[in-house]
C-alpha cells in the first residue's frame, strides 16, 4: 500500500483548549475564551503564554448576541496576552477555520514564531427566534433574508434536491444525528451528552421541512483555541504536537440560487482539493475527520465533497456505519456540531481541538486506533466559504 509522502508541515499545533460547551448561563464570551485558553496553556508547561505568544487571531460571528463588537482585544486581554496584536476574523461559521489559516500564514511567513488562534460565541442570551435572525445575517440580506430564508431553510433547499435527485431519505439524515449524538455522549465537553434514537429524530418537531429539530446543530455557548508554532520550535516546547500539512480555503457565490449545483458545496470541494494536494494525501488516507454538520444533510454532502464516498451516496454511507467510531473513516467523533454544539465562531478550531486529541492519543473513549492523518472541514454560511485542514500526528 502506498504510504503518503511526508511533506514538510506548514505549521505545528503544540496545544489545544476547549471550554465546556453548552448553555453557559452567566458566563461572558471573554470568560469562555479564557477557559479554553487556560486548558491550552496547561498542556505546555514550557510555554510562558503572556511572553511567548506573539499574536492572536480570534473568530467570532456576531456582535448581536452580547452587544459586543471588537471582541479580539477583549478575549486576548482575558487570556493574559496583552499587548500582543489580536484580530477578530469573521467568516460566519468558518470564522475560526479562517482564523487558523491566518495563524498558519503568520507562522509560515516567519513573522511570528508562536501564535494563538481560536474562536468564541456566546449565543444563549437570546431567545431562539432572535438567534435564528442573527444567524440569518450570514445569508444574503436583499435576496435571501428579505425573502424569508433561514439557515435551516437554506440547507433544507439542498436537502430537498438531494432527496429528489439521489433518493436520499429523511431516515438517512436522521442516521447522522443518531451517530453524532452517540459520539457526543462520550465527550465530557459536549453540549448534549445524550444518545437519541432514530425514532426520536424522526418525530422531533419540524424546523424547515425536511429538516427537523434533531437535524439541526445546537445553539451553544463555547470557545476553542490552538497554539501554533514552527515544526522546529514545537519539538523544543512539547512532546505532544500535531503537524498541519494541508490548508485550503475557497469561496462560492454568496446566494445559494446562483450555484450550478445544489447537491454539492463547491467551496468545500475546492478547499479539500487544495488541502489534499498540499498534504499529498488522498481521501482514502484520512483516518478520522471532523466535518461541518450544521445540519444532518451537510454531513452527507461533506462526505461526498471530501471524496469519502461517491456523489449522491452520502446517505447510504452514514447508514452503512462506515463513519462510526470503529468504521472505515470515523466522522465527528467529538459529537460534531450536532451534539457537541455549534458556538459559531468557535467551531472551526473546536474541530481541530478534537483532531489534536485524536492524533496525540488523548481522545479517551472516543479514541480512533492508530489515527495518523486527520481532516477538518468547516463551512461558512450556506457554503460561500469552505475551509479544509489536514493534520498529521508526529
Amino acid at each position, binding site marked *: 500500500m502506498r504510504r503518503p509522502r511526508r511533506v514538510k508541515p506548514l505549521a505545528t499545533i503544540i496545544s489545544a483548549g476547549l471550554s465546556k460547551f453548552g448553555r453557559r448561563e452567566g458566563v461572558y464570551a471573554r470568560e469562555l475564551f479564557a477557559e479554553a485558553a487556560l486548558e491550552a496553556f496547561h498542556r505546555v508547561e514550557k510555554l510562558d503564554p503572556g511572553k511567548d505568544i506573539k499574536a492572536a487571531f480570534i473568530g467570532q460571528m456576531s456582535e448581536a448576541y452580547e452587544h459586543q463588537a471588537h471582541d479580539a482585544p477583549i478575549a486576548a486581554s482575558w487570556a493574559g496576552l496583552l499587548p500582543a496584536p489580536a484580530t477578530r476574523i469573521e467568516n460566519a461559521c468558518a470564522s475560526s477555520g479562517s482564523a487558523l489559516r491566518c495563524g498558519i500564514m503568520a507562522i509560515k511567513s516567519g513573522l511570528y514564531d508562536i501564535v494563538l488562534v481560536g474562536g468564541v460565541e456566546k449565543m444563549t442570551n437570546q431567545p431562539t427566534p432572535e438567534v435564528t435572525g442573527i444567524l440569518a445575517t450570514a445569508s444574503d440580506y436583499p435576496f435571501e433574508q428579505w*425573502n*424569508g430564508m433561514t439557515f435551516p*431553510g437554506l440547507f433544507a433547499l439542498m436537502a430537498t434536491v438531494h432527496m429528489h435527485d439521489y433518493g436520499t431519505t429523511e431516515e438517512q439524515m436522521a442516521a447522522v444525528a443518531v451517530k453524532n449524538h452517540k459520539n457526543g455522549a462520550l465527550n465530557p465537553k459536549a453540549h448534549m451528552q445524550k444518545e437519541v434514537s432514530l425514532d426520536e429524530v424522526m418525530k422531533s418537531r419540524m424546523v424547515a421541512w425536511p429538516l427537523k429539530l434533531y437535524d439541526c446543530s445546537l445553539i451553544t455557548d463555547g470557545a476553542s483555541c490552538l497554539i501554533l508554532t514552527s515544526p522546529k520550535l514545537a519539538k523544543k516546547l512539547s512532546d505532544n504536537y500535531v503537524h498541519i500539512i494541508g490548508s485550503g480555503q475557497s469561496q462560492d457565490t454568496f446566494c*445559494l440560487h446562483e450555484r450550478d449545483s*445544489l447537491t454539492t458545496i463547491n467551496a468545500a470541494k475546492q478547499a479539500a482539493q487544495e488541502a489534499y494536494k498540499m498534504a499529498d494525501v488522498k481521501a482514502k488516507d484520512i483516518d478520522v475527520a471532523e466535518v461541518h454538520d450544521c445540519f444532518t444533510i451537510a454531513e452527507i454532502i461533506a462526505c461526498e465533497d471530501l471524496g469519502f464516498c461517491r456523489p449522491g451516496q452520502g446517505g447510504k454511507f452514514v447508514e452503512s456505519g462506515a463513519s462510526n467510531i470503529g468504521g472505515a473513516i470515523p466522522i465527528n467523533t467529538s459529537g460534531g456540531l450536532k451534539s457537541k454544539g455549534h458556538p459559531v465562531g468557535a467551531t472551526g478550531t473546536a474541530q481541530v481541538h478534537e483532531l489534536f486529541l485524536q492524533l496525540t492519543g488523548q481522545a479517551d473513549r472516543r479514541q480512533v486506533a492508530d489515527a495518523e492523518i486527520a481532516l477538518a472541514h468547516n463551512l461558512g454560511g450556506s457554503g460561500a466559504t469552505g475551509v479544509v485542514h489536514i493534520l498529521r500526528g508526529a
Partner: protein
Amino acid sequence: MSELPPPTIEEFYRQCADRKLMAVRCVRCKHIMVPPRAICPKCRSSRVEWVQLGTQGKLVTYTIVHVSPPQFKHMTPYAVGIVEMEEGVKLPSIIRTSRLESLKIGMELEVDFSPKSQETSWPHWPRYFFKETE
C-alpha cells in the same frame, strides 16, 4: 448607454414597484444574473445591461419554514424556494400557496408583487413572490 439606470439592487426593487421583474445580462458572455451587479462573475466583463424577465418560472427546490426570524413569524409555516425563469436565471422567493402539501419540484409558478413596505426604516423595498399559475 449613460441614460440607463445602474445595475444596483435598489434599482431592481424600484422596478418591482412597477411590477417588473428585472435581471442583468452580460453583453459579452450573455450570463444573466440576479442580484444585479456591475462585473460579470463568469467572464469579468463590465458591460452589463438590464433585461426584463417574463412572468413564468419553474420550482427548482423548496422548503417549508416553521421556525422563522421574528419579522416572518406571522406567516409560519410558509414556503420558500428557488425558481428558474424561462430565461434561465434563478431567484430565491417566497412561494405563496394555500396548499403547502401540493408543492413539487418542477411545478409551474408565476410572479406577483406586493407593495412597498410601510416601515419607517431602510429598506422600503416592495417584494416579488411566486404563486401557482392560474
